[in-house]
């Protein structure tokens, strides 16, 4: 097992190095002269030259790459133009809110996908199967930003069932201010016993989480159906049946156990994918996470910030893939015993 983990980690490290190089390449695709942009439109030629030296842009590309690399590894991810703060500290502030959002979305997606996938697999080809399949394809075909707007209009604006925007009710800022310990509102609130705030955050979380859950729910439903149908013909399923287990246990416990492996892998991949989807949703709901940060960065052409977010999410993706590999080896003994 240790050898397996070590091998995976080494490979992931290589990919991370490549990702950093690629991000560097993108940063230098920006048309125009970064030094001139930095110095401003009225700067003299001498000032631009001085800016170039200051920014280290007069060094050969290989040296720039190395210093960029070193910077990333030591925590210097540049200064965001629209906030004038280090990108990394900006990320530390906004990332937790998005991680909260996507985690909630994953939970919603699994709660929906597992039963629907099992129902599809248990009665394949029937009307329920076709309806669920249409539903899941609808989920993966959904333009997220549009769904966010529509849900906001219907549930918040017209029906007044759920809050329109924000992370929590603004009035609570005065009556029950939230002390931030970890940065995660849903963890900090219970930790400090601030239950009104906890409830408010949950209420505000619901709509954006449902929107983000649409794609994973659709994907996972189809995948669970396929996995369960794939194994249901196997001998060990027949054996478990012959022992007297009900069809519900046969599908829900035994067949599903084999499906968890690929499902876990998919959840990890979709997690990072959904982090990117927050870009399309958070601004609409004014949820203060990575998405809102990125949307603001795009509007103000804040390249360091955009690349910082890109690098961050790519790293999350690599780590997620790594975690999945190790998890799969842990629950499916066939992999690590190979």
């Amino acid at each position, binding site marked *: 097992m240790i050898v397996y983990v070590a091998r995976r980690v080494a490979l992931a490290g290589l990919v991370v190095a490549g990702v950093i190089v690629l991000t560097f390449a993108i940063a230098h695709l920006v048309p125009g002269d970064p030094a001139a942009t930095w110095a401003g439109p009225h700067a003299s030629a001498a000032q631009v030259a001085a800016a170039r030296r200051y920014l280290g842009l007069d060094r050969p590309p290989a040296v720039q790459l190395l210093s960029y690399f070193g910077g990333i590894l030591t925590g210097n991810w540049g200064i965001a133009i629209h906030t004038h703060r280090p990108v990394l500290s900006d990320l530390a502030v906004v990332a937790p809110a998005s991680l909260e959002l996507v985690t909630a979305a994953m939970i919603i997606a699994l709660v929906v996908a597992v039963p629907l996938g099992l129902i599809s697999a248990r009665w394949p080809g029937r009307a329920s199967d076709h309806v669920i399949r249409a539903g899941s394809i609808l989920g993966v075909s959904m333009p997220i930003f549009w769904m966010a707007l529509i849900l906001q209009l219907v549930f918040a604006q017209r029906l007044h069932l759920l809050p329109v925007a924000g992370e929590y009710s603004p009035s609570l800022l005065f009556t029950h201010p939230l002390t931030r310990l970890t940065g995660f509102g849903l963890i900090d609130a219970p930790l400090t016993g601030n239950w009104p705030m906890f409830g408010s955050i949950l209420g505000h979380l619901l709509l954006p989480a449902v929107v983000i859950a649409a794609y994973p729910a659709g994907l996972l439903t189809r995948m669970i159906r396929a996995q369960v149908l794939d194994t249901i013909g*196997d*001998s*060990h*399923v*027949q*054996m*478990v*049946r*012959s*022992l*007297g*287990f*009900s069809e519900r246990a046969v599908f829900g416990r*035994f067949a599903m*156990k*084999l499906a968890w*492996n690929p499902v876990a892998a998919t959840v990890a991949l979709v997690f990072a994918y959904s982090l990117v989807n927050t870009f399309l949703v958070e601004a609409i709901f004014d949820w203060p996470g990575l998405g809102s940060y990125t949307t603001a960065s795009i509007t103000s052409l804040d390249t360091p910030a955009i690349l910082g977010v890109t690098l961050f999410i790519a790293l999350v993706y690599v780590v997620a893939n790594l975690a999945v590999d190790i998890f799969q080896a842990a*629950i*499916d*003994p*066939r992999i690590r*015993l190979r």
Partner: protein
Amino acid sequence: MRLSITNLQVSFGERRVVDLAELAVGEAEIVGLAGDSGSGKSVTTLAVLGLAHTVGATVSGSIRLDGAELTGLSHREMREVRGRRIAAIFQSPALAFSPVYRVGSIVHRALRLHGMTRAEAAEAAERAMRQVLLPPGLLDRYPSQLSGGQLQRVAIALALALHAEVLLADEPTSALDVTVQAEVLELLRELRDRERMSVLFISHDLAVVAELCDRVAIMQHGSIVEQGPTSQVITAPASPYTAELLASVPRLAAGAGQ
């Protein structure tokens, strides 16, 4: 007769694959069901277990366990019979156990499903493992870590622990080495003698059937062409098909009457 099957017909839509007039297994008896592949033997096992519908087959006829009719039972009632009173072991033991569960986990779950407490289940499992001459510690392993022979013995241990009355053995030794095969056959004999189990032994290998079974039924194209005590059927086959099968087993043809 503990298990008696009468007028059993199993069909896949229009196509009838089994048309069994009569087959019975008594207490403390091993009855062999022999015939070529495709003669409908395995489907008969599924029918007795009440699982024929899972492969898309329809069943009609009578299957009686200790006189009680099984074919009319509800799903829930049948589930109580399955495993508890009628157990089954299958051809590829390596494939019969779910690869992501420890072998003992399946055993414990089955025992608890049929009413044992956690302590009772643990004890029964351990005892059964010793009866099949396996160290109980093997229950903590995954199927991929055990040999075919060991897995088949665990399957038999499960039937033992549940104190099943009938054991349906569907080609249990076909995938095993000859030496391991002998051990499993010996275990089946013990089940008959010590536990007084009724064993229906299904196989295409007439040599093994002749060696193990008290009575034998020969199946061809879904019907039984001949039935009777093993020595009689082997030495004086009434059906030409039986004679054909015998002729294709060189060892038997040479040493008939052992």
